[in-house]
């Protein structure tokens, strides 16, 4: 009985470890984007095409901002003084403009997928 329990435990453990390993391997790359005085920095981000990634957006302003990529139909409110880790879809090769919807004259940039 003890041997069966041990065997079962090892099987579960190995599955859990393999999932953990896979998850670590699948962890998408993170790119930092900062909003300060209603300007994004850097204004250009380069990512690998056809692979998901994470945008770590920090809003240093006091006011909320809405990150928007209209070509992808996506948007997200970034509260003032907060950081969001935004899971982004895999992009086909190309250039994708983004803006801060509330301050679009200054808050703008692009993601280049290549």
């Amino acid at each position, binding site marked *: 009985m003890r041997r069966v*329990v041990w065997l079962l435990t090892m099987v*579960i453990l190995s599955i*859990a470890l393999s999932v953990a390993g896979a998850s670590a391997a699948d962890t998408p790359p993170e790119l930092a984007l900062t909003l300060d005085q209603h300007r994004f920095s850097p204004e250009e981000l380069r990512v690998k095409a056809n692979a998901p990634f994470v945008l770590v957006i920090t809003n240093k302003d006091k006011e909320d901002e809405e990150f928007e990529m*209209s070509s992808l139909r996506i948007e997200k409110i970034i509260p003032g003084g907060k950081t969001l880790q935004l899971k*982004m879809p895999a992009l086909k090769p190309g250039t994708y403009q983004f803006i801060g*919807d509330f301050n679009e004259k200054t808050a703008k940039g692009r993601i280049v997928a290549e």
Partner: protein
Amino acid sequence: MRVAAVGLVFLVCCAVAPAYAQYDEPNITFFYPLVTRRPIIERELEFKLMHTKGLDARETEATAAIEFPILPRLQFEVEVPFLVLNPDEGKVVAGFGDIELQAKLQVFKSVQYRALVAFGLESKLASGSRARGLGGEYAVEPFLTAGIALGPFDLIGEVAYEWILNGDEHPREQEFTARLAIAYPASRWFIPLLELVTVTKTRGPADDEESLLHKTQVYLVPGFNIRPRAGVTFRAGVQVPVTTAKAFDYQFLSALVVEF
């Protein structure tokens, strides 16, 4: 030993789970159709103005609505209409119509494919005066709505089925509605759109020559969205029948949406 092993497995599993859960997902956004329901969970105020040239009356309806998410994927809406009814024969009447309540649950979201699916239930409360022609109907209408971005176009489709639950008519009316909206986001500020609407009364009294029972009414709704500033959208259009089976001659639709 056994407890230790189980504890170890539990710890590993707990360590794995946050790797998937820590990221935020962006919201998907589409245009505002004029009559088709959107599969989007919204947080906004809406002010609608509609004028209908009916078969025996002109009707103007001003509506205020609030849409509010109580969970990230569950939204409630309350809509209060005010009607002015000008019949071809008889005097003008005005007053509040039937209040509508709606719950909408988003059941599918794909940022990768830019697609959303939601279903919901709308119920009409008989708050308007039936005697004065301002409503007075209890009705329920489950609906399913889905949207997807295909290349440069956005498509939103919806099917709904309405049961009227009160009234002296026998049998009580039931209606199937299917809507399809297509838009071309020409810019962030202007989006032209076109909707196709079909309405089929599947049940109801048939003793009237003009009865629409089992006839499919088809309407086209050309229109547009204008976004004068961030968080504010104005939409307008006109719904016109393209079949002889019709409930009205034309209907002007407009709305101002303010996100909050």
